[in-house]
């Protein structure tokens, strides 16, 4: 068995193929059994010696000594697969394809199971598996759609964060309950200011000075007020109460909420706690209709006031008035249940040092009573001079 070299390389290749088909030599290169060349090689010709593929760096004649390294080396180890098998750009393979771009195929339910690819498989087998996976990709693409995901969202973030658009309406409908850290970041204030509220959801909370301040609503007061509220905002309610005080020093409701000592004096500590936590400049001031007169055991007057941090009414907590003596005056612009309490009613329960608390609401119940949220979850009322807890609501915004 002898192979030509140089100008006769093509004939030599044909000879190698013929040998391979005949069960003889390797199709890639002739084999040498020892360091004495049994074939002649031109520069660049390849041969196999000791299980390794070599390439002649000098002309090697039959009978020459093959020197693989050091002084007088006439060959070097060849490790380029391209040199071994050549360019496969135009190679073809025959296989059974599972790929199909037909609508009926790519819209069909289910994942087409594909066995794992393993070493040693034939090209036909590999390509068949690849074609099945391509069909799966077509199904996935058909499911996901061709529209780019919004605002850099990933499928994972959408699934974990809810299928939401970034606006108040959508975010008011999704409860998440995630810790947002110990302060409101500038990026979060930017989202609030834009009204997009990205990565802010109902139930999310900041823990500041030991108090969980939880997101209760987005843009609850937007466009309300005798002077319109135009700032996007996030309404916040603390999980725990901030103080304990009476509504009045005696059992009267004279002057309604505005006439109460709670409104004029007793909220000071709670307000200070909140202002310290968020900074006074970040607390939204908006206009509220509060009761300011009571007659015949009922609220009978209301007016617009600036409001920053105030007690909630029954509507905000329960979604309706319960004990209010004159619901029309009590409801005012706070006419809907805060999403926090509708999506997770357990959050209506507030705690005071680990114990369920009784906390005031601002609704006038009679000439002697105001409404409050009972520790056991029921809507109730109590004498104005009783000391119950203070759990106000407020909103933050970017000034």
């Amino acid at each position, binding site marked *: 068995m002898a192979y030509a070299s140089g100008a006769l390389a093509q004939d030599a290749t044909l000879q190698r193929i013929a040998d391979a088909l005949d069960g003889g030599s390797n199709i890639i290169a002739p084999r040498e059994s020892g360091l004495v060349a049994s074939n002649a090689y031109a520069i660049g010709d390849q041969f196999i010696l000791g299980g390794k593929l070599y390439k002649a760096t000098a002309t090697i004649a039959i009978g020459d000594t093959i020197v693989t390294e050091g002084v007088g080396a006439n060959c070097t180890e060849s490790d380029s697969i391209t040199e071994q098998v050549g360019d496969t750009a135009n190679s073809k393979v025959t296989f059974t394809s599972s790929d199909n771009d037909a609508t009926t195929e790519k819209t069909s339910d289910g994942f087409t199971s594909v066995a794992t690819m393993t070493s040693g498989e034939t090209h036909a087998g590999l390509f068949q598996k690849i074609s099945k996976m391509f069909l799966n990709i077509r199904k996935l693409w058909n499911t996901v759609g061709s529209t780019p995901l919004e605002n850099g969202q990933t499928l994972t973030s959408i699934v974990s964060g809810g299928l939401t658009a970034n606006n108040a309406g959508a975010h008011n409908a999704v409860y998440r309950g995630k810790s947002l850290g110990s302060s409101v970041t500038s990026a979060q204030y930017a989202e609030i200011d834009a009204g997009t509220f990205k990565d802010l959801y109902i139930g999310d909370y900041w823990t500041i000075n030991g108090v969980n301040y939880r997101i209760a609503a987005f843009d609850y007061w937007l466009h309300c007020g005798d002077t319109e509220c135009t700032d996007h905002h996030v309404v916040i309610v603390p999980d725990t109460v901030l103080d304990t005080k009476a509504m009045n020093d005696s059992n009267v409701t004279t002057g309604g909420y505005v006439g109460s000592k709670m409104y004029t004096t007793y909220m000071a500590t709670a307000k200070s706690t909140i202002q310290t936590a968020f900074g006074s400049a970040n607390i939204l001031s908006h206009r509220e209709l509060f009761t*300011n007169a009571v007659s015949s055991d009922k609220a009978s007057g209301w007016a617009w006031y600036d409001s920053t941090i105030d007690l909630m009414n029954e509507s905000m907590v329960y979604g309706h008035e319960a004990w209010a003596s004159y619901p029309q005056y009590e409801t005012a612009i706070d006419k809907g249940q805060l999403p926090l309490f509708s999506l997770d009613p357990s959050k209506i329960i507030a705690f005071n040092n680990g114990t369920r608390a009784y906390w005031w609401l601002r609704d006038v119940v009679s000439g002697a009573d105001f409404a409050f949220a009972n520790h056991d979850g029921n809507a109730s009322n109590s004498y104005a001079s009783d000391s119950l807890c203070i759990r106000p609501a407020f909103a933050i915004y970017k000034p």
Partner: protein
Amino acid sequence: MATIKFNNGITINAEENGNCFITDSKPAFPSDLSNITVTTDEESYVIANGEIIEAASIDGRYWFTIRDVPETELAREKVDAQITYTAIMTDTLLEDE
């Protein structure tokens, strides 16, 4: 601003907020509080049987609202007064409710 005109012709000008009226000091209200005409920037309406309700003040001025007492409440007050008068005249002791 609102103008409140009473049945005897007395007129009070007041700032309006909600259903409240605000004056710098407490006005001298007439005893006849029927047929009070209130005219605001947006509307004009009549209160048939008024009752002055003092509201909480947050600024040192006088805040009040005028409640329109329903006919049913007036009728009950009238009946209660008649019962009380009759009891007094007949020396009858009325039991508490």
